[in-house]
């Protein structure tokens, strides 16, 4: 197995930059290719091998951006159809992703059919001030050759201080970003392993590097074919979506439904997520929000919960990552699941409705909060994969959105599905209980598919001559 070229891979693909809690995603269009290439050449991109920094810079380009910067058509043709077509233009893709009705790209804040995005500059820092300095240094007072169309702000919702300052929640109040695939690497050093980037192959959560990086073998033993050989090396596809969350609406809905079923709202919402707000998975903590399991991720369902009595089959985390219970055989389930994994690097935006962001604390004040809170909040969903079709789009369409996932009659993801209607089913004894007339409390506000090149490949692009 080939060792991963950490110094050539852009950092955010393999590292979450947890300590850099502020982020700004600057969307831009290329206005002057020559100047833009010079600007690119001067960007000190953060590599996955770098450590102990208080800022980070990474960059990704859409297909139109690659074209605008002068990448030859022979290379452009070799990119996967998803990148070439983009996220928002094709009607079949809109149906597959659920970008219809109120989620339709025509209503997006950015990335819609009439808003061409050429690239995104991802800036990260430990403080707001450092973030501002970083932006000033690389985007102001010079001819960058790019015009900025939008800046997406983000601040991680920290759970507490000390160790917990790097435990993040999302706006509904649940722990986020716990489950991540590890990358198989023959040359994983003990330090890399301790930092959680790579693992030797063989474990259920360890996936071949080619699933996330071009130029390495994927789970089928082949290099992913969605990018040209030279330019693709050490690159990845970045999927970005801005997802607005109606937090008060969600909890009012859950509270009403829980009342009808005579269960606690926090339990019902946790059944929908598959984890308690603190992150403890229901498979291991079926009755209460157990402490000590917040980061726990090395579990399966086949042995402890084959019938979905603890964690329903329709729960968000059991749909997004079915682990060992997708098909009849555990090993086959794990193997199939490995071909549909994503490295998620999402960040929340907007102010939380309450601090601390703990449902048990804010639920009693929910109606007061609902009339008091204003503004938009949600998630900048970012993920990396080498086959947008087989990984991101598949998970979104076949596992999250499909009302028929795993034999269901009419049941989409209770948390992240864009669709209203259908039921959420909770298997149990003597019979399954359901929440009917489900509603969606998210709204897609923007999105695009990008290619994040390796650092040397980006230098090649910067060196292109017309």
């Amino acid at each position, binding site marked *: 197995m080939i060792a991963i070229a950490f110094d050539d891979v852009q950092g955010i693909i393999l590292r979450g930059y947890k300590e850099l809690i502020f982020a700004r995603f600057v969307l831009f269009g290329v206005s002057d290719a020559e100047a833009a290439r010079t600007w690119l050449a001067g960007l000190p991109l953060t590599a996955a091998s770098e450590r102990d920094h208080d800022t980070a810079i990474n960059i990704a380009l859409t297909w139109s951006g690659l074209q605008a910067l002068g990448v030859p058509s022979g290379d452009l*043709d*070799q990119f996967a*159809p998803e990148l*070439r077509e983009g996220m928002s233009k*094709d*009607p*079949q893709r809109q*149906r*597959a992703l659920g970008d219809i009705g109120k989620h339709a790209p025509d209503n997006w804040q950015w990335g819609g059919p009439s808003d061409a995005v050429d690239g995104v500059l991802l800036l990260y820092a430990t403080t707001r001030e450092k973030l501002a300095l970083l932006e000033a240094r690389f985007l102001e007072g010079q001819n960058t050759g790019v015009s900025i169309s939008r800046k997406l702000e983000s601040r991680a919702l920290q759970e507490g201080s000390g160790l917990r300052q790097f435990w993040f929640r999302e706006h509904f109040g649940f722990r986020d970003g716990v489950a991540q695939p590890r990358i198989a690497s023959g040359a994983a050093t003990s330090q890399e392993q301790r930092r959680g980037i790579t693992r030797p192959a063989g474990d259920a959560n360890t996936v071949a590097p080619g699933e996330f990086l071009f130029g390495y073998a994927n789970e*089928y033993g*082949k290099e*992913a*074919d*969605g990018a040209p050989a030279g330019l693709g090396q050490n690159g990845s596809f970045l999927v970005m979506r801005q997802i607005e969350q109606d937090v008060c609406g969600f909890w009012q809905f859950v509270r009403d439904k829980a009342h*009808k*079923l*005579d269960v606690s709202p926090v339990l019902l919402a946790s059944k929908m997520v598959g984890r308690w707000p603190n992150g403890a998975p229901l498979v291991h903590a079926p009755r209460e929000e157990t402490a000590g399991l917040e980061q726990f991720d090395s579990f399966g369902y086949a042995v402890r919960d084959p019938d979905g009595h603890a964690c329903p089959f329709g729960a968000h985390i059991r749909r997004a990552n079915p682990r060992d219970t997708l098909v009849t055989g555990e090993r*086959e389930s794990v*193997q*199939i699941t490995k*071909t549909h994994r994503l490295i998620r690097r999402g960040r929340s935006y907007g102010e939380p409705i309450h601090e601390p962001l703990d449902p048990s604390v804010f639920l009693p004040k929910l109606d007061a909060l609902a009339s008091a809170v204003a503004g938009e909040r949600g998630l900048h969903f970012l993920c990396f994969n080498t*086959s947008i*079709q*087989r990984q991101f*789009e*598949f998970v979104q*369409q*076949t596992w999250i959105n*499909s*009302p*028929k996932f795993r*034999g269901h*009659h*009419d049941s989409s993801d209770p948390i992240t599905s864009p669709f209203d209607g259908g039921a959420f089913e909770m298997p149990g*004894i*003597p*019979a*399954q*209980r*359901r929440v*009917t007339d489900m509603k969606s409390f998210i709204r897609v506000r923007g999105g695009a598919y990008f290619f994040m090149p390796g650092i040397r490949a980006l230098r090649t692009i910067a060196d292109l001559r017309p």
Partner: protein
Amino acid sequence: MGGSTLTIVTLVRAADGPGGAGRLRAALAVVQENTARPSSLAHAIAFHRVKGLHFARFTVVEEGETQRLFGPKKYLPAELVLSLVFDGTKADCVEQLILAARRELDIIYASCEGYPGSKAEAPAVRDYFISHDVRPLVFYQGVEGMTVSAVETTAALRDELRARLDARLHRGTAETAASLGRALRPRPPIIAAADLPPPVPLASERELRLRILAWILVVAAPFILLALLTGLTASALGASEDWSIAAGFAPIVFLFALLVLHEAADARALARQAKPRPRDFSRVRIVEDVAVQNALSHCVVVKPGIVRRLVLRIVFWAVRQKVSIIERHRGSLGGIASIHFARWVPLDGGDRLLFLSDYDGSWESYLAEFVDRASTGLSSIWSNTVGFPETWLLVFKGARDEGGFKKWTRDKQIETPIWYSAYPHRTVANIRNDLRLSQLLASDKPTPEDAAWLGLL
């Protein structure tokens, strides 16, 4: 009971010259206004008036050509395919269709060779359709014997019981399986056992293993016989024991050697090919994912030469054995449980191979199952057709080349401008679940465990 099929293949009129297929497609578009509005499931052709019709589709196979070993290339004409899956007899289905949609059929078939025309009597049109039926090489049905009416009644029963159950559970009283069973179990049963297809019990793990073994023996038997025959003949002709054994193996070794040589030559030809420019598949994608089911129409040219033809014949025979010995007792085709109906149909006397299927879920999930679960079976069939990814010994590599196989499948996929499903919102898993529920409740035997049927709600 359910599950007959007609594949009506007609030539696009040669009198219309090249481009006849284009005019036919225009006619189809006129008939099927909803090609412009893919989000609508409304149909210009009143397929729903054909009682017992499960699925229907029109698809156009473009003109093409195939290499011959000697002589010039052979021209393959453009053809219109009407595929029907229905309950009952062929004549009845066609007669109902003519009654429901004569005007539209006249418009479409005006572009086809030999159509009796709009003034002809209905029996003449019926005979035209039935005489153009091509028997599929393999026909697979997801839920055996299931009729359209049984799909509807079992689904209605499940919905009704589910609603009653919801109402009861919302009351918040403590319930047991027995108390729920007493309250909900319909008496007498709403659906009688006689109205349901005879159950094909799904085999246990152990039985499945035995069935797989049986299938291997059945498939191996002709080869063993052949070996015995040639060996014994050699012996009778006076060959020594060693030579007789060698003679016995000779035909099989010879066949394999031929196959390996062909595969090596095909691999070299593939490697020589330049990377094609990316093609736009939006025309086939435009009708996908409108409901939970999708249609795949796929047409490929069979590789030239007698060896590939022979191999394909043997493979299809083996696949038919597999469907009847294993698959119908497993409820899946090659491990894929999301297929309502699938069929392989030979066109132009075997020069082309048409594959039609009606499946649940997205194209990507269907193809993923092809790659992950059914690659050997599919490679053994499609490696005998042009452009298929490099294959070794008929079953290895091939469809395991995930990227290459998916690209090839999309590339050979043809448009399905008109497609009808009688129950577009029911998956095979739903149908099987609701059937099982109805069977448990219709049983004459002593009351089955209430927990068993409650678990299916």
